[in-house]
């Protein structure tokens, strides 16, 4: 059993939890992920490691409430325990040797971009962080990101924080102002990572994206998470989740993400209905 030692609601849809998992905390590196299962009968869900404390022995996850399992998790509290928590999985990001890097996080992707920015910053790279949200109420990790970057630009789709625009516009502007990045890291929804990759391709800037396909085991034994990268089939759980954004077939990845749309809705509806029932009782 893996105890929840900290819970913090970052915005109405996004929750941070620190989990007591000393063995994982000891080995975790930015870019790696865990898989959790809440209880018997539950599904296995992957989440990127947002932070870790090797001394205290905790691993931090940040997730958005999108369906049944994440909703159930968000209803748990400090002191409750998860049945299964396994990791660190995937290959750690290769962050050594870069001088100037743009780290881009879209929405929840900011939580995954954060440990990467932190690591790059600690390695001495100049980090420009760009995070994007739909509106100002959804902004997360602004302070944390501020601390690990030389420049932080937080954009909102609707301009409600006074800085309207998409992350791609911000990046383009920074490049056109003469910033010479030797790496761009883009983490967020597939459409956003695709748009960033298309932009950086024109400028010939190496771009890493963090893919988040459907997964079951996370150890390379089923291929449920497969993607086409550079014309070859790759398993995101063991070959990734980081890949060269210029080589990923994003359209295929977007189609594959819809595989269980119908079943996910069915499962969520039943859960919400049960909750409603409980309230009425």
């Amino acid at each position: 059993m893996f105890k929840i030692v900290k819970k913090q609601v970052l915005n109405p849809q996004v929750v941070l939890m620190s989990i007591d998992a000393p063995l994982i905390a000891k080995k975790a590196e930015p870019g790696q992920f865990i898989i959790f299962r809440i209880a018997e009968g539950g599904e296995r869900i992957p989440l990127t490691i947002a932070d870790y404390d090797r001394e205290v022995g905790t691993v931090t996850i940040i997730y958005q409430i999108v369906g049944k399992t994440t909703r159930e998790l968000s209803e748990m509290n400090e002191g409750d325990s998860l049945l299964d928590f396994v990791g660190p999985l995937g290959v750690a990001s290769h962050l050594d040797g870069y001088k100037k890097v743009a780290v881009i996080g879209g929405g929840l992707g900011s939580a995954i971009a954060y440990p990467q920015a932190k690591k790059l910053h600690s390695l001495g790279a100049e980090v420009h962080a760009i995070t994007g949200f739909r509106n100002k109420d959804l902004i997360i990790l602004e302070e944390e990101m501020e601390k690990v970057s030389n420049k932080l630009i937080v954009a909102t789709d609707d301009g409600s924080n006074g800085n309207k625009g998409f992350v791609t516009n911000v990046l383009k502007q920074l490049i056109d102002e003469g910033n010479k990045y030797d790496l761009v890291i883009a983490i967020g929804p597939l459409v956003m990572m695709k748009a960033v990759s298309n932009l950086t391709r024109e400028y010939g800037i190496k771009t890493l994206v963090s893919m988040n396909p459907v997964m079951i085991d996370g150890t390379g034994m089923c291929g449920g998470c497969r993607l086409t990268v550079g014309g070859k089939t790759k398993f995101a759980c063991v070959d990734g989740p980081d890949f060269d954004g210029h080589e990923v077939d994003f359209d295929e990845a977007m189609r594959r993400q819809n595989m269980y749309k119908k079943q996910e809705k069915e499962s969520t509806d039943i859960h919400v209905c049960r909750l409603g029932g409980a309230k009425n009782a």
Partner: protein
Amino acid sequence: MPNMSLTKVKMPEQEPDIRNKNFKEVALGYDEKMAIEEAQRCLNCKHKPCVSGCPVNVKIPEFIQLVAEGKFEEAYNKIRETNSLPAVCGRVCPQESQCEMVCVRTNKGESVGIGRLERFVADWYMQNVKSSVNKPESNGVKVAVVGSGPAGLTCAGDLAKMGYQVTIFEAFHVPGGVLMYGIPEFRLPKALVQQEIQTVKDLGVDIQTNMVIGRVLSVEDLKEQGYKAVFIGSGAGLPSFMGIPGENYNGVYSANEFLTRINLMGAYKFPSTDTPVFVGKNVAVVGGGNVAMDAARSAKRLGAENVYIIYRRSEAEMPARLEEVHHAKEEGIIFKVLTNPKQILGTEDGWVKGMECVEMELGEPDKSGRRRPVEKKGSEHVVDLETVIIAIGQSPNPLISSTTPGLDIQSWGGIIVEEETGATSKSGVYAGGDAVTGAATVILAMGAGKKAAEAIDKYIRQNQ
């Protein structure tokens, strides 16, 4: 007087048209009377070819004589001397190519139903005897086992019996390996697998789940933690794909993914469990092994109307157990043999809509002695489908070999070992089962686990 009937006592089964709609066990097992009657067919012959036909050398005539006398508990103890998982082996071993193939009764008629009797004895024991196995005295020497499939469980059980303090590290949330995620409930009930694993735990074996060796701890870490030897029984879990166009359309599964969703995650009970699985009206399973049969029969049970087995050779070459091919046919699985997929066809939004196949004919024998299938010109045709399941084999997962310096592997990923001992190129590290051989059978993995346990004992004694 022995029972001279030429055929085995028939085992009751669920009717095909009922069982192909549920996941309950198909073969229902013998009752005491049937078991005694079948046991009396054993001639208790002097040279016992059956024993050498069994990879873990179960004392077959001895336990069968005890069954014939109605001494079921004694029969169980006799089997357990050499086999840690009799309820499993009795169900899933390909007996027709092992113990039963060499039974003297096959000179005239059917062999003795050794597998059925082993299964009966194990089931009878679980239902009737509550006392747990006596825990052996510990010698305090730690041994680590990576993987809790048949190889690891056998190796761990045997080492525990010798007094070692054994810890099994399992990547999944439940132990059992392929017994849990691969072989379906209708062939091997999961509660029974867990009960059988409990008997290994009762010997003092500690099983730690959620431990992906190669990530959370390396083999080196284990040695540093004081484990005097390590056995790698991590299996062959890496699925092969065909490399044809269209394999990433929605609706294309590896058999590993399909079966893991169903067996391990209980997706056939969705939405009372949370893991979904998708099958359309028309399903093709590509391959001819046991995994293909399991996937096809599972798809049928999930409500698919037409389930095809697509296999490029003829039925005679199919590696699946005869009994399972027979069961699949009874349940309405359609066999399209001598047929090979060329490409998977998809809709505009990326879902499977069919598969282009070509007919094959058998040409000259290849290196393995099997006649090589050759395409028949102009026989291309399209099968309409919504789901494709690829069951053309698995190879060993590279997670451990790639994170263990000094561990020699074959070009296809199998760990290289000394055949007699399971010793790898790394001192104190042993390996066995599918991690060494590529996908094979449960009982061969158990045989390898057994040999390695003996070798590990010898190694530790010599190095103390």
